[in-house]
């Protein structure tokens, strides 16, 4: 397993290739965890994508090196992964025979959970986010971090090197823009 902390540090220093090395690790871990969760069938456990990500982080990063800044950056990466994975899953819902049953069900559950929390369907949301990115890329990024990565305002601020006040402001405005776009 690649050393995720080292990758994160490279990525924070501006090394974009670190992200590409990290994504498969994160992706695999997420899928593995989703399967574990489902097989446990804990009735109280909602399969929140963000919960999966947090757990993945705890597994990928050795316990001694837990630092909330690192975690925020990791979540930032994971937000992109989750968005891609769930989007791909939603787009190909009908053509998923090839994926194993457990895998399909876990992603379904994660997707439903996200759509229920955000009260919007993911393909529609994604389309609107792309339109938002065209006029305001930073806002679109904030939405990605918050909705797909489950980052708090403060964590998103850390990832984007912005103040929490700015992120809060941009987030509330972006939310209204998306709302209007989707009604």
């Amino acid at each position, binding site marked *: 397993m690649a050393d995720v902390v080292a990758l994160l540090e490279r990525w924070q220093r501006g090394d974009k290739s670190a992200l590409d090395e990290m994504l498969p690790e994160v992706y695999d871990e997420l899928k593995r965890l989703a399967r574990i969760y489902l097989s446990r069938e804990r009735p109280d456990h909602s399969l929140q994508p963000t919960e999966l990500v947090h757990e993945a982080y705890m597994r990928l990063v050795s316990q001694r090196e837990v630092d909330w800044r690192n975690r925020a950056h990791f979540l930032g990466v994971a937000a992109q992964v989750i968005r891609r994975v769930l989007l791909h899953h939603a787009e190909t819902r009908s053509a998923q025979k090839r994926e194993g049953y457990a895998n399909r069900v876990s992603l379904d559950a994660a997707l439903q959970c996200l759509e229920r*929390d*955000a*009260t919007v369907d993911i393909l529609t949301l994604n389309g609107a986010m792309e339109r938002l990115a065209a006029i*305001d890329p930073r806002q679109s990024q904030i939405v990605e971090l*918050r909705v797909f990565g489950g980052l708090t305002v*403060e964590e998103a601020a850390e990832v984007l090197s912005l103040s*929490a006040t700015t992120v809060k402001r941009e987030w509330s405005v972006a939310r*209204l823009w*998306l709302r*209007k776009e989707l009604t």
Partner: protein
Amino acid sequence: MTSERWTRVKQVLADALDLSRDQRDAFVDQACGEDQDLRHEVLTLLRGDEPDSNFLNLDRAPQRLGPWRIVREIGRGGMGAVYLAQREDGQFEQRAAIKVIKRGMDSEAVLRRFYAERQILARLQHPNITRLLDGGLFDGRPYFVMEYVEGEPILDYSSRHSLTLRDRVGLFLSVCDAVDYAHGNLVLHRDLKGGNILVDSRGEVKLLDFGIAKLLTEDVAAEQTVNAAQAFTPQAASPEQVKGEPLTTASDIYSLGLLLYELLAEKPPYRVQANAPLEMVDLICERAVPRPSLLAGLAGARVLRGDLDTIVLKALEKDSSRRYSRASDFAADLRRYLEGRPIQARPTGTAYRLRKFLSRHRRGVAATVLVMLAVTAAIADAIRQGRRAGRRFEELHQLAGNFLFEFHDAIAPLPGAAPARELVEKRALQYLDILARESSGNLDLKRELAEGYLRVGAAQGLVHESNPAKAAEARANVEKAIALLEQVLRAKPSDPTATSDLARARLTLHSVSGSAGPHPTLSQ
């Protein structure tokens, strides 16, 4: 939309979102100026901001806060939710209770106070006080991390274990020690109640939330508004807390008295209905507290009669200066009782009867305020309608004006009348503002209005000398009086009343502006 356009739209939109809902439309109108498209765009987006909309609403329970992982919710109350949390790094087993303050409490002010107080709170190291470990922001909501205690609220614990009177007093003495220690460190609890005091499996008392209430409340001395955010539990509140007066250690003593009352009598002396504020004030501030022995069951009554009655009632005196001055004095009297020595508290005799008389008197005041408010509202209405119908406008406004001012001056010397007086001032100003709008060309009315503003301004200046916000309000009212008098003098340069009133107004302005000069009295 282009990104340049969006940048402009989002600036106005974000600024509008920072305002309260009723101010937004006016702000957008002003900010957009001639640009009708911009205005339309912003207002359309603003309409999507509904408080209970679930769209992309991410205000859910936190999963992690700093190094803490949330295990489960353990409670929910007026201030927000409390979670059981576990340290994430697993270095050592540590659990904590995390209180996340709900949205709507002014989070920035809360956090500012938290940073100001955290040093002091962190210094509180006492075996019976749970420690404040950390704090921060979660999605703009402040949270406090506190030592987690597994225990049972003190009242439940006492009745479930059928503790003897001696054991109950023993537990209570630990509470007193903890409170006295905190007071020695200049920290008030401000929300002492049975639910905040737990007994753990070893029988040790643990006080929760020390100092938290202060973080959530505006400084009362700086914000003398009747409806200032109140982070206390009415059932456990002292008279001064209910009246919004500054709190001292004596307020915690009162809450301790209530706790001891319920520990001994197994009933609270009164039950407060939080949704009936006037009744609440009456109950807590005016009505005499029945002796604990009167409410206790037959067996308890005999033991409580006498010294314990006297001790509890001393802690529950309405007048804070008549209570125990320190928690340690309270404890010392209880120890004397346990050891069979004479206690220091004395039952109240003549003084008590006098207090009863005063309390009846003050209740009369509260009732009168209500009647008065109803009457003025009716009169103000009549003035507006009478004006339109061309009826006896002059007589009406004289009636309303005199009634208000006489009432204001009459209640001024009464103890505890501050909130009532503030209401009267507010009403008077509303009434003056209504009349001022109608006063064009009517010199007599202008003179009278000036007199009115001057009286309110002088009263505010006297009462709120040390409060900058109120002092500014006082100045503004005196300045209104001066402006009106100058209008009168421009029309009638030699008007003797207006000339002398103007001189008096200038003198008042001088004194409410914070100079050391003597204050003019109200009735000059």
